[in-house]
């Protein structure tokens, strides 16, 4: 990219682009990190946010209204929308596994060229947390992935094959990075959009996975 973006600008840019793909009415589950930011850019009416710790109808919350017992899956304070409901963890995952959540937006460490992702463990490091990622991948009608295009060392996170343990055999539907947007069609990545400032040459250079243009 010719213009160097800060990490925050990059993350917000990705979140803003993802929001364009959300059309109501739908139920959306947001993961931790960039996915949480998507809520700031949703303009469509009739989008309800689900959080796996037990709330359907998540909104943002003003500082003075923060309640320590009202949080999202990232344990950040949230508010409750008109029409919200609370439920236990088993009911929450019944909604997810049972196919009642329309879109899950997740972060990922790696994506392979068929759209399979790895986002819960790094070999050689302690396997310490999986949370709801595996449930969301098997259950959500659509899965969108957000991540930086490359690792800190510059290597591509869109790989021929994941080298980290996969989260599910299910292929995701769309992938959003600071450089490009891909759709997964029949197990193949298709470049559908370049992000502002990105060039096709840069995307080719920084993407190990095969993709169609």
């Amino acid at each position, binding site marked *: 990219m010719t213009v160097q973006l800060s990490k925050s600008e990059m993350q917000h840019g990705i979140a803003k682009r993802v929001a364009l793909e959300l059309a109501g009415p739908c139920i959306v589950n947001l993961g931790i990190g960039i996915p949480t930011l998507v809520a700031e850019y949703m303009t469509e009416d009739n989008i309800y946010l689900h*959080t*796996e*710790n*037990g*709330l359907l109808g998540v909104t943002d919350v003003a500082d003075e209204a*923060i*309640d*320590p*017992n*009202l*949080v999202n899956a990232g*344990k950040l304070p949230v508010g*409750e929308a008109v029409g919200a409901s*609370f*439920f*236990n*963890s*088993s009911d*929450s*995952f*019944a909604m*997810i*596994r049972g196919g009642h959540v329309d879109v899950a937006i997740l972060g990922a460490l790696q994506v392979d060229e068929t759209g399979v992702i790895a986002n819960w*463990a790094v070999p050689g490091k*302690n*396997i*310490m*947390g*999986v*949370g*709801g*990622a*595996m*449930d969301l991948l*098997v*259950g959500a009608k659509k899965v969108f992935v957000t991540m930086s295009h490359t690792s800190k060392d510059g290597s591509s996170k869109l790989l021929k094959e994941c080298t980290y*343990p*996969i*989260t*599910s*055999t299910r292929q995701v539907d769309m992938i959003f990075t600071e450089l490009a947007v891909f759709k997964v069609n029949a197990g193949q990545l298709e470049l559908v959009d370049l992000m502002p400032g990105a060039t096709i040459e840069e995307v080719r250079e920084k993407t190990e996975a095969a993709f169609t243009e």
Partner: protein
Amino acid sequence: MSKIQQDITQALECIKSGDTVLVGGFGLIGAPLTLIEGLTERDVTDLTIVSNNLGESGKGLGILLNQNKIKKGIGSYFTSNRDVGDKYQNGEIELELLPQGTLAESLRAGGAGLGGYYTTTGVGTDLAIGKEEREIDGIHYILEKAIRADVALIRAHKADTLGNLVYYKTARNFNPLMATAAKTVIVEVDEIVEAGELDPEEVVTPFIYIDTIVKAQQVLTKEGVVAV
């Protein structure tokens, strides 16, 4: 006999070394902080703790962890307490990681008298290793076993004197499930009211599951955990 117990130590008398204990909460939210503190003062070891997280560093179950009273942790997200990684690295604790929905459903199944259930979650991943796989109507599932325990420590918002419970916002999480899945269930609450004061339509956990009720002495506030 009244289920209400004033003395926390007395309430926790039933917990023995080697027991499996369910502990409610999603991090510190909805965690029975008073009962956890009481447990840190009991001379018990080799506990198997089933909880989404093992608290935070030096807080909640994190204190019990640092006292080396936990032999094994079963949960879905230990990352929230960095001490868990260090203990695991040093071979001081066993861990069993489950997807969050599987943890919840295994507790539900345990409380409902089932042996286990088939789920699509985790199929084809490292968390399916060693688990029976089965195809039902063309879909692949793995077998997950139910979870049952000796004791459950949970948190609710209000109890009536019989033990009917209502919860508060996202502090509900695993608590109603754990209430069903242990031989002895101890609940801590913000408020105890007379039987009849809770609307039967609003009761989330019926009293059949509850053995002992204590009043919370530690609560989570915007400023952190404080004594009340």
